[in-house]
């Protein structure tokens, strides 16, 4: 059962770049070894935290999208927990949300195609209806 997940984690701000790269490649290898695949890795950069986490006021945010079974997430989270520079992480399942969004998009596109024609007609109709209505009072007075 393949599912899509989004893993966001924060590493301490004083971490060196090469250490960070090493950490990321490490995580990638754990994902692939657990029969999962990595879709993307996004280094979102340093950001001020909304509250203090392990005595840090800022952190480096990293976002990964992963595909695989729940065991992948289980293993990843276990790893993150024991990795000292990672101060916080959050895993969110995203496949159902993506499905929902696609459905909405499809619906909207279908609506657009249908409504494109009647909308043009409907715009003309009141304009045509207005002119005789304006004529009526003038005629009566």
């Amino acid at each position: 059962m393949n599912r899509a997940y989004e893993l966001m984690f924060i590493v301490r701000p004083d971490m060196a770049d090469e250490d960070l790269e090493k950490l990321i490649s490490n995580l990638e290898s754990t994902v692939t070894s657990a029969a999962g695949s990595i879709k993307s890795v996004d280094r979102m950069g340093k950001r001020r935290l909304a509250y203090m986490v392990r005595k840090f006021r800022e952190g480096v945010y990293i976002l990964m999208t992963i595909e695989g079974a729940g065991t992948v997430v289980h293993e990843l989270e276990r790893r993150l927990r024991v990795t000292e520079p990672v101060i916080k992480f959050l895993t969110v399942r995203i496949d159902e949300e993506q499905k929902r969004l696609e459905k909405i998009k499809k619906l909207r596109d279908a609506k657009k195609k249908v409504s494109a024609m009647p909308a043009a007609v409907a715009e003309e109709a009141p304009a045509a209806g207005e002119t005789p209505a304006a004529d009526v009072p003038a005629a009566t007075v």
Partner: protein
Amino acid sequence: MTEETKAPAPAAERPSRPFGERSSGGDRPRFGSGGGGGRSGPGGPPREGGRKFFRRKKVCKFCTEKIADINYKDYRTLGQFVAESGKIVPRRLTGVCSPHQHRLAAAIKQARNIALLPFAGRAS
């Protein structure tokens, strides 16, 4: 009764009032009266004078702007629905519709978890 015969159809329902009289109670506009009326058009909007307080109807931001995806990463949007104290603003104040408020609340809680939004107080 003689006036009724002059103006054929529309005045037939209320025969008692003469044409020149203007009642304050917002009588409906008459058609076909030559000099008496003074109302501009048929179909003009009936004025309602009594209402003093106009409350602007609140609309759901996510419905009007067609934002389908309420995501925890989008903390700027979420921040609009969080009070200074860090609380989620109830929808009776913001006007967000019920299904969107559900998603919004879930997203805010996720954002809090990953330190994008504060649990309490302002973002430090």
